[in-house]
């Protein structure tokens, strides 16, 4: 050391490299930079998460909220003074429950729960899942609420519940249908077998015999009808039903229907009226003739079936690029409760009706499926005890056009 007195002297005077007065500034500056970086990172992370985040005190005063929270509740950062956490709670919520959750969080118990909040601006309800924790923020005990928007999820949940109910209803309907169809098949079958048995009896008169045979024929037709309908429905359900287009002269088609049903109507004492008909009108529709036929047959058959007096009217008008067909009766009508269900497969008006009128409940379902395929729409207006009016539309040409009401 003795040789270097000069060097030491400089340092003693305070001219050495480290000979300044003690200063915390460099270390503090580093720490401040470190803290600022970490704060910025934290804010970036907070603003990147897809859940809304609130930091608020025990009075509900909001100290910080992330971007998602600003979007979800439509609060901007400079409006923090105007609102508290209570402003985003639905009026339905139980505050005592919320305060208990806050207290738990402060005692270190995290709660995750479903809650109902509202948007500040629109007051629209926002179902959410909330996770609440507690921390120290600028020396104060605060709560951190992470809020996940459950709107979509709630919707899915509701859809799922609805789908399940539908599936259950469908299942129930199928069971009811099976029971019904068994009955519907057994009745004509009993007729066939029973009257075939009677035919074996000796000494039958010609009249008796031809009467029995007529009943067997009628029962066979009824069964064939049911089986045809069943096959149609099964084709529709499996997507195998094809549409075959051709030009159909509407007038001819309606005439055919009229001639086909008029005897049956007269037999029942009903008048069947073709409305607005101009003989020789050659207006054409480009559609599937068989299906149009089936639609009209089903509707008129139903009208005759459920009508005990009065008249059945049918016809069509032109409505824009569509034809509007109608079948009106003065029958028993359909109750309000049942009107929505009548086009559903396997369903008929109601049980009382099922007992009174034969039928498998497939007709209107087939009608609706056909009209859907042909780009049209069907609806019904009815009053119980007064009568029903079925309307359906079909496009004049099916190319890219669909007829709705």
């Amino acid at each position, binding site marked *: 050391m003795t040789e270097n007195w*000069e060097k*030491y*002297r400089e340092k003693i*005077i*305070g001219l050495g490299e*480290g*000979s300044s*007065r003690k200063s915390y500034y460099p270390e503090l500056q580093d720490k401040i930079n470190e803290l600022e970086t970490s704060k910025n990172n934290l804010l970036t992370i907070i603003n990147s998460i897809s859940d809304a985040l609130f930091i608020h005190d025990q009075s509900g005063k909001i100290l910080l909220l992330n971007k998602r929270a600003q979007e979800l509740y439509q609060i901007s950062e400079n409006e923090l003074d105007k609102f508290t956490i209570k402003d985003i709670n639905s009026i339905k919520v139980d505050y005592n429950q919320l305060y208990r959750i806050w207290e738990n969080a402060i005692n270190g118990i995290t709660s995750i729960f479903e809650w109902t909040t509202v948007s500040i601006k629109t007051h629209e309800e926002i179902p959410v899942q909330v996770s609440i924790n507690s921390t120290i923020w600028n020396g104060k005990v605060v709560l951190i609420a992470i809020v996940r928007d459950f709107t979509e999820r709630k919707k899915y949940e509701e859809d799922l519940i609805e789908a399940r109910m539908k599936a259950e209803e469908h299942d129930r309907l199928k069971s009811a249908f099976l029971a019904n169809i068994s009955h519907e098949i057994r009745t004509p079958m009993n007729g066939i077998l029973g009257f075939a048995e009677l035919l074996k009896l000796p000494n039958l008169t010609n009249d008796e015999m031809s009467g029995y045979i007529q009943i067997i024929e009628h029962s066979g037709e009824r069964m064939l009808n049911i089986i045809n309908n069943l096959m149609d429905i099964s084709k529709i359900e499996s997507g195998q039903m094809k549409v075959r287009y051709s030009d159909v002269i509407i007038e001819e088609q309606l005439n055919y229907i009229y001639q086909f049903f008029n005897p049956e109507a007269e037999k029942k004492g009903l008048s069947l009226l073709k409305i607005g008909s101009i003989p020789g009108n050659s207006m054409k529709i480009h559609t599937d003739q068989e299906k149009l036929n089936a639609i009209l047959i089903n509707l008129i058959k139903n009208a005759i079936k459920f009508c005990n007096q009065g008249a059945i009217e049918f016809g069509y008008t032109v409505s824009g690029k569509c034809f509007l067909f109608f079948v009106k009766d003065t029958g028993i009508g359909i109750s309000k409760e049942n009107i929505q269900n009548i086009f559903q497969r396997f369903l008929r008006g109601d049980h009382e009706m099922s007992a009174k009128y034969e039928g498998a409940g497939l007709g209107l379902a087939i009608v609706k499926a056909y009209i859907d395929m042909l780009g049209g729409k069907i609806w019904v207006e009815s009053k119980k005890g007064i009568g029903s009016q079925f309307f359906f539309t079909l496009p004049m040409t099916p190319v890219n056009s669909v007829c709705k009401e």
Partner: protein
Amino acid sequence: MNTNQDLIQLELRKFVAPEYIFGLKARLSAGNFCHQLGGRKVLIVTDAGVLRTPWLKEVEESIIKSGIEHVVFSSVSPNPRDYEIMLGVDFYRENNCNIILALGGGSVMDAAKGIGIVSTNHRHISEFEGVDRIERPMPPLICIPTTGGTAADVSQFAIINNYSKKYKMAIISKSVVPDVALIDPEVLTSMDSFLTACTGIDALSHAFEAYVSNASSAVTDLYALEAIRLIHSNLLFSYQNLNDIQSRGKMMLASLYAGLAFSNASLGCVHSLAHSLGGYLDLPHGECNAILLPHVVDFNFKSASEKYIQIAKTLNLPVSGLNNTQIKNTLIDHLKNFNHSLGIHSGLSDKNVKLDDIPILSVKAIKDPCNATNPKPPVKRDLEVIYSEAM
């Protein structure tokens, strides 16, 4: 035309001093300063002597009043030892302190500095021996001196006893200058007459050495000469009237002036020799300085004669018409008489120093950085001679 006497010091110099409050009851602002410096928990460093006074309780109350926690570390002996420093650091860390307050004399303040250095630099205290070796600043340090000599409360020095190697390590760094000194003359009243004499002479030797130091400056000279004047005219009275608060105040001021001077201009051979004595034989620092000062004046006189003559004039010694040798002898005689009047032993032999000790003492003393600023750079042989003459 400038005469030679009008020329001023133009070499680079620096002056560092802490913020200090001087005056009665200054000690009671301890709590306020702990608060201002960001104190959460204060380590109060003190010693057994101070525990017997009312000062500690008053300071504690002041800190409590500021709403700050504190703990007391009082295991500090005179000539504080390296292991005591390390124990103090453990205590500081265990209690999670963030600020240090020293209440005591030079030993306590040096110990507090040592604890501060180690607490932020995490190495043994002996690694900081020498000049300017502290890398990281220590925690805030507030000093309340209870003796009127050491001026560790304003200085860049910390003297720690290397207990196993039996020598005093000088740690010199601007970063050990405390942040705040609360200089309260009232606390000097707890010193007895011997301690009053020793610490007074310690301050005088600080002023002497700073004034003749080769690192002195115009500013340090101002303080050094005023300190010499104050001590010369007040120490004896204070020694004889321990409760006279005016003379205590003047001695406290003198100690502060001497401290500001030597902290910036540093010291010389009196201190390198005294550090060695204190470390090897654990002798009281002030008394050693008192005995050594006249002999070091003898050794240095030729290298700084103008300065010594100025000191003699300040002491109102009759110097007109005398040649340099005569002035030197007058000054030396005066110092010896001054010691005598204060009841201080005249020779080292009276303090049980043996002739055989001198080679060992000199080996240790020559390594002391105080030699660096002595007006005449000493070699080991010089120090042996001074020791022998001081026997």
